[in-house]
């Protein structure tokens, strides 16, 4: 479990206590209520009520929903921040960004739609940090909110690889070819869409019938309903997540080390299909 270090030692200077370090891969969902620093590779979604820092060398493939996002590394996926998004000179980002304040520093590379200045009050569900609004591959957590859905598949082994050498092949191997037709170069992105939020909803709807997981279909369909009443669910979940970070591919927890029932690994997990 050294993969995810809790650097309680304050001499590390900054407030970032949890680090997914270099050479570490996490596939799945990362939820938390404290700051997180990613120096390794995370494929899936990250939901934090605090600040996410993607360091230079760190890679996140998937949706990010945080209070504040600081990128020095690579993000491939959409990001929503209730506070601020800052892309530093070494940042490489492909995805749509939404936050009241967005800063793109000289040298940062970005391709995607930006939406600034939309206050959280317009989207009340987002206000609670780490709100479990669907981003990317996020699904309602049936473990808490919908225990009645189909039983889970057997637990899977730990999904943390420490071999840096395995990383590239891992990325490639896990990825099933995109069935979606490439829309061709978007120069510049032209689609005028009403809001990121709506498109997320669309994505959820579109994805609902996708043959992803046995029990996913029900969940995905449910996800829409749960959109609207997150609060209760969030509360329930908070009770379980008694420590800061919970990596939910079923296997990694920092708090108690308990292996949670895992959902089967999805080849397409974390993948963002192309809209349109």
């Amino acid at each position: 479990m050294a993969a995810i270090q809790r650097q309680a030692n304050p001499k590390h200077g900054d407030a970032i206590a949890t680090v997914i370090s270099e050479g570490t891969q996490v596939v799945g969902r990362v939820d938390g209520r404290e700051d997180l620093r990613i120096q390794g590779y995370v494929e899936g979604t990250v939901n934090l009520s605090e600040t996410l820092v993607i360091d230079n060398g760190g890679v996140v493939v998937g949706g990010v929903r945080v209070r504040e996002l600081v990128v020095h590394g690579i993000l491939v996926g959409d990001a929503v921040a209730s506070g601020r998004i800052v892309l530093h000179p070494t940042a490489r980002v492909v995805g749509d960004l939404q936050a009241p304040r967005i800063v793109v520093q000289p040298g940062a590379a970005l391709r995607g739609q930006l939406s600034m200045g939309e206050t959280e009050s317009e989207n009340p569900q987002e206000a609670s940090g780490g709100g479990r609004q669907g981003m990317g591959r996020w699904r309602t957590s049936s473990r808490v909110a919908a225990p009645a859905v189909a039983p889970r598949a057997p637990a899977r082994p730990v999904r943390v690889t420490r071999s840096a050498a395995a990383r590239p092949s891992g990325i490639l191997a896990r990825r099933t070819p995109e069935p979606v037709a490439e829309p061709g170069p978007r120069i510049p992105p032209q689609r005028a869409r009403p809001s990121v939020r709506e498109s997320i909803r669309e994505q959820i709807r579109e994805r609902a019938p996708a043959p992803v997981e046995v029990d996913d279909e029900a969940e995905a369909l449910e996800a829409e309903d749960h959109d609207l009443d997150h609060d209760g669910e969030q509360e329930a979940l908070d009770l379980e997540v008694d420590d800061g970070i919970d990596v939910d591919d079923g296997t990694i927890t920092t708090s108690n080390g308990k292996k949670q029932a895992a959902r089967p690994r999805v080849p397409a997990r974390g993948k963002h299909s192309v809209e349109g």
Partner: protein
Amino acid sequence: MVAPAMNPSHCLIGLRMTVRGALVGEEDLVVEGRVEGNITLSGHLLIAEGGVVESDVEVESADIHGHVIGDVAAAVAITIHPGASVHGNLRAPRIVIEDGAHFKGGVDMDVDLPEGLQRARGR
């Protein structure tokens, strides 16, 4: 070539001036007033605070302090300064959005992703 001293005949659309129509040129341009028409320059475009451009812009480089509604494409760089407001799509090898700027639209830079991540998002 971004040097503002490139051309001594400093081109300026003044504060209380409106240009409607296409504007084409090979030198630097400062807009303090209002331009409603496409701007095509092989020079630097400075939209000063209070300046308004409601049209597509194609320039070598652009510094925006004012208000733009339209797409901006630059061969070198686009900088959106604090206080500026831009609605439209940006395309340039280098784009800077400073804190305090307001922007809504698409951004298209060359993103040099490592192999393996490039196909992660089919864009």
